[in-house]
């Protein structure tokens, strides 16, 4: 392994690809580290190997990634696939696992482009087999062409519901219903942002077109869905929900052995937390994100975050923020002057600003209603340790008043997922129980390794200075 690389970029999605490419073009010694076998991140997953027919199925958004991959190959950046990062400290020492070997390497600059994860939203029955995240299902489609054979119900919020429903319909999968949970009141919240959003590009036109395509195929789309429940003994057998039409509430039940859910995406923050970087509660995203400046610099010297890991902006904005972080790193390392950095960044800053215009509108339109953020007592919140919302409320009432104390007492957040699945739910429950803003809660302290490491791998760990 190279020990001389001065910049490590973690994550080969659009932000990481752009950051590594530009940094290498500026003459930096850069290594791009990614846990996947091929570059592209989640959005352009398995793009390099995908057969032409699957690329046609997935559409233009997917195809866009090809230009990014080509640029990386010609940039001279070193690329380490199949490499997971299990630790990062404030001295920019990175713990990696590659081909089963653990090593610690120190870098002068680190750009984290860890992307986003699907927002975990606990509802009754969400842990039943057959209930799956929509994004994960889409990855199966992208990487292996796998689809739910017996048809599916798609529930949650946002444009991905429509996008995947349309992809499934084109692949011949029976979509039984699309259940959109954002309440009609969100329209009122979103309306003030509409004017700026329409200036933001093609997002809205596509939303309208997808909706029309799905309805034309005869798939019912229910809006303002509440009381979502998955039923079944060992596997999901049906989904129950209430839809709120113009004629009032209507309770429904659909038989299905597959329910795909998606409640938007939230920034992945474990790595920056492990390094001691500060987070900020984002009231519009309803979750934590990394605190960064316009270049992506975090509160830890030499560690930047680019792309969705710093706040949800989508793939195009991620490319711009990756380039901005690369410019800042090149300037910090003395490859370009601050004046050159500023001059080279004008276009990216302008483009990113334009691209982000849609976000206030989308965040307001697809805001998760409190019913879903603060589940009822019987619902499991921490899947690893099987801790319910009721146990968390009881702990708060007994004086364990912040999420870390709740974690100490109940072990929620101490399982193999390290709290990634329950952190924001615990914060929402603590804040609702204490009637304080979620921003007043401290995020879970993150303990390494952030992805599991075996006893043998730790015993054989090689250190940078050995």
């Amino acid at each position, binding site marked *: 392994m190279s020990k001389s690389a001065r910049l490590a970029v973690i994550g080969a999605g659009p932000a990481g690809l752009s950051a590594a490419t530009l940094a290498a073009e500026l003459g930096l010694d850069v290594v791009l580290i990614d846990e996947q076998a091929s570059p592209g991140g989640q959005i352009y997953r398995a793009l390099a190997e995908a057969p032409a027919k699957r690329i046609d199925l997935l559409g233009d958004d997917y195809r866009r990634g090809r230009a990014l991959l080509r640029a990386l190959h010609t940039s001279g950046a070193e690329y380490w696939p199949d490499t997971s990062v299990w*630790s990062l*400290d*404030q001295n920019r020492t990175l*713990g990696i696992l590659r081909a089963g070997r653990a090593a*610690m390497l120190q870098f002068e600059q680190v750009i984290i482009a860890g992307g986003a994860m699907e927002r975990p939203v606990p509802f009754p029955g969400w842990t039943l087999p057959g209930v799956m995240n929509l994004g994960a299902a889409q990855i199966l489609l992208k990487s292996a062409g796998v689809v739910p054979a017996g048809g599916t119900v798609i529930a949650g919020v946002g444009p991905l519901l429509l996008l995947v429903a349309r992809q499934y319909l084109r692949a011949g999968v029976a979509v039984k219903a699309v259940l959109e949970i954002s309440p009609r009141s969100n329209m009122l919240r979103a309306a003030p942002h509409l004017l700026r959003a329409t200036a933001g590009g093609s997002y809205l036109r596509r939303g309208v077109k997808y909706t029309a395509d799905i309805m034309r195929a005869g798939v019912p789309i229910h809006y303002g869905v509440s009381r979502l429940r998955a039923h079944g003994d060992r596997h999901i057998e049906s989904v129950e929900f209430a839809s709120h039409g113009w004629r009032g509430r209507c309770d429904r039940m659909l038989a299905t052995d597959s329910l795909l859910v998606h409640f938007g995406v939230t920034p992945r923050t474990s790595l920056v937390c492990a390094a*001691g970087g500060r987070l900020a509660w984002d009231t519009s995203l309803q979750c934590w994100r990394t605190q960064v400046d316009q270049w992506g610099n975090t509160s830890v010297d030499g560690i930047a975050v680019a792309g969705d890991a710093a706040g949800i902006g989508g793939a195009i904005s991620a490319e711009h923020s990756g380039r901005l972080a690369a410019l800042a790193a090149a300037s910090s390392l003395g490859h370009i002057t601050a004046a050159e950095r500023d001059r080279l960044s004008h276009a990216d800053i302008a483009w990113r600003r334009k691209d982000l215009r849609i976000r206030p509108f989308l965040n307001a339109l697809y805001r998760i209603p409190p019913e879903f953020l603060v589940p009822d007592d019987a619902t499991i919140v921490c899947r690893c340790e099987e801790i319910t919302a009721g146990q968390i409320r009881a702990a708060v009432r*007994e*004086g*364990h*008043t*912040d999420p870390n*104390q709740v974690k*100490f*007492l109940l*072990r929620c957040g*101490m*399982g*193999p997922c*390290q709290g990634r699945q329950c952190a924001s739910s615990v914060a929402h429950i603590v804040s609702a129980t204490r009637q304080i803003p979620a921003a007043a809660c401290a995020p879970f302290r993150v*303990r*390494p*390794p952030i992805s*599991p*490491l*075996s*006893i*043998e791998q*730790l*015993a054989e*760990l090689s*250190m940078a200075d050995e």
Partner: protein
Amino acid sequence: MTNATAKIFDTVIVGGGLMGSSTALQLALAGQRVVVLEKDHPGRHASGSNAGGLRRLNRHPAEIPLAVAAAEMWRNIAALVDSDCDVKLCGQVRVAESTADLEMLQKRVALVRSLGYEHEQLIDRDQLYRLVPTLAPHCLGALYAAGDGFARPYHTLTAFRRKAESLGVVFHSGHRVQALEQLAAGWRVVTEHGGFTGRTLVNAAGAWADRICALLDEPVPMTVGAPMMMVTERLPHFLDLVVGAASRMLSFKQMQNGTVLIGGAHLAAHDMAHETTAIDFTKLRESARTVRALFPHMKSVRIVRAWAGLEAFMPDRLPVISESARAPGVFHAFGFSAHGFQLAPIIGRILAEHITGRPGPLRLEAFRIERFNTTNAIAESQ
């Protein structure tokens, strides 16, 4: 709390960890009005993040009487705090991997016997492998204490706190001590949320105890360390006892939920300005190598989490359990040097006995703060 009389107590305890909470509970049982001032939240550091060992095995001779008395209290802990604290008295062993180890353990048994105690015994190879069947085959025997075991630290702390609260003790989180003012009869403890007055002051401030000593003009050669621990994924049950080793740093046990907790007092890096710790993977690697050597079946088991808690260490690795030599009405209980958990119930009782003027039979000479009482001793240790 605007009413001044509401802030007058018999005893003000600084530190809401296990020692402070245990002392508060015993004082409340003796009828005192007590307030506990905690700068963060109870159990934020060592008391919430230690390994939870209940161990008389291999203690310093001066600590044995306390550890034995504490063991009596742990056996019946629910009678004291209305919770079993998840205590598991499964036994602890300290294994010998060489004849030199074995000789060391034999001497230990002889020492313990000479002091009049029977709780530690030597077991042979066959007995050891009956107790710990998955242990690597090279071990020769072990020191064994049948009634030792472990408990869950944060649950224990919570049980002590809640019981104390039920008896009227007031706990204040987020109350960092800014100043100590000596009154005609007692002390006023100043925090950013106001002053708290008591006839007696208890310093149970853990890794911050030396700062309280400094406010009392009673410097101590205390240092701070952060022992590291790691925990694995859940495994099928394979181990009942807590396993240590004669010549390695190790504490190894399987918890009730199947996870394996691995300690051994390798120290993390720490930063007292930010009150944070950072795992030192070079040292944690030693822990992993020790585990691999003694439990080879653990090789492919995944480590889920590693952490460290800030603790106070004394140069002689014995705690300070002592009336202040300088400040009347002040009692210290700190510097447990990473083995205080087991002593917590008896420390509370001892301090309460001394504070209420009814000292019991346990001797505290070895733990007096005066033992560091020369400026030279402090200079040397730093």
